[in-house]
């Protein structure tokens, strides 16, 4: 009996020490917290950093993860489903998306990640384009710079 208890306890303790109690999907980062800096090569990667920052800002404002938001960017319907889940209106979500993009463009410009022309283009998109078109643009944003 003592041997059985010892064998069981040893195995469970060993597995727990090897990470068994935390062997689960990696938790996603808090979009409101700053992320470690990442080097960008070329215009495409720099625009990508701006768009990822826009996703962080929007997600932080909505109280969701960046990943949940990005998965919802597939279509207006998916975005509406996210709005329903978070008990927000489509207008609130749209406003958060546009504000997040504008804030990230401003920040990107300040850090010299993007030039004036790209920034103006992204600002125009954030201010003026209908939501469906804006989503299509975000999905293929890096093609803008080829």
């Amino acid at each position: 009996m003592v041997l059985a208890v010892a064998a069981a306890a040893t195995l469970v303790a060993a597995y727990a020490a090897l990470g068994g109690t935390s062997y689960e999907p990696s938790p996603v980062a808090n979009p409101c917290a700053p992320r470690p800096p990442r080097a960008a090569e070329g215009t495409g990667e720099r625009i990508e950093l701006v768009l990822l920052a826009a996703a962080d800002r929007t997600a932080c404002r909505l109280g969701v993860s960046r990943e949940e938001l990005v998965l919802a960017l597939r279509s207006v319907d998916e975005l509406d489903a996210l709005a329903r889940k978070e008990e927000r209106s489509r207008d609130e979500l749209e406003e958060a998306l546009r504000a997040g993009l504008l804030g990230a463009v401003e920040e990107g410009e300040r850090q010299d990640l993007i030039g004036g022309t790209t920034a103006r283009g992204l600002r125009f998109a954030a201010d003026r384009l209908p939501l469906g078109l804006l989503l299509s643009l975000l999905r293929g944003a890096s093609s803008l710079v080829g």
Partner: protein
Amino acid sequence: MSTRTRSTLVGLGIGLALADSSVVTLALPDILRQFDVEIPTVAWVLTSYNLWLALAAVPAAYVARRRPAPAFGAGTLVFAAASLGCALAPSFGVLVGARCVQAVGGALLVCAALDLLSEIEGSDTRAVRTWAAAGILGAALGPAIGGILTETLGWESIFFLQAPLALVTLAAAARLRVRPLVEPAGRPSVPANLALLLLSGALTAALFLLVLLLVDGWRMDPALAGIVVTVMPVAAIATAAVAERLGGTATRAATGVVLVAGGLTALGVLPGSAWWWTVLPQILVGAGLGLALSALTERALHGRSPQAVHGGWTIAARHAGVVVGLLLLTPVFTAALDRNEERALRAGAAAVLDSRIPPLEKLAVAQDVLAIVRASDREVPDVRDAFADRPATAEYRGLEEELVSQLDRAVTAAFSRPFLLAALLALGALVPIAVSRRAVSV
């Protein structure tokens, strides 16, 4: 026919009938696809058998004690005929119906076998040991044999093979005169049977969920998974051989329960998603199974007469435990799987966004992965399909491995709670063992 041959044949019959409580575990995905049914529905192929075995065991035992040899013959014939019915079932309803009939035949066969063994071996004690050992072997080997047969010959072969094997066991009862017992049956041992019920509920996780984790969760080849889970019966056989040296039935039962609970807890905190992580927990569970089930069965039958009736109570308790285990653990598991699927999706999306693949490709990859997950319809998806037509660069391969790893983590974590819950069920068996230890000293 020699005593040994007769005992072996009767043991084979018991093993076949009790293996059926878990033999189709690895065949469930194939049955699900063939009859186009949902996961909770297909689980009835297992549940119906165990439920009917539990319900029919005691009435069957009362029938068996009056005419053991004819009851064994009739039970075997019904079991064999229903096995053929399962193999040839044209619809899911017929399959479940045949499984119920098979369980009733199995109950009659198993209960009558105890009196047959007493007659063949000339000792109630030896008969109970052979009877319990055959049942443990059958239940523990069931998933492995079923998996190998399903993979090599198809799920129907499990039932096709059972029918002639069952008929062979009839030879054991030929020309055997067994004295019918008509004395009134005493009260069953409540603590021993309750402990059997709780322990069997816990063992459902080891026999059913472990196989599911290996095959559906970690996408392991069913035949290989069948070989991996033979660790449990091998450990059970090895332990059963030395069990008597470990003390009285209460000590053996309690030791076995602790080992089973320890093994299940270790399965609940697996540190990785490879089959070898399951080996040590399986050894603990198998060793515990070999000790506890036989000790509790001996305890339930000790000093009680007629043996067949009290044997019937142990079968009823064990298979009611399996039903309780299936009904309790399945919803916990499916809820955990749903929750972890969402967590895996978010972790996977983070891996895609933070990867070094071309920016334009990121959303496309994320969308492809999401589409595969959504189309998987409660089965664990294979996200490698999203990379089939993409460049084989280090960046893509790294991302693919990361996504597979996140999915493995999610699936393994989904099995954690049911294993831990099963460990608690097993530990619950210590209470009736402790109560009966005060009352009985065997």
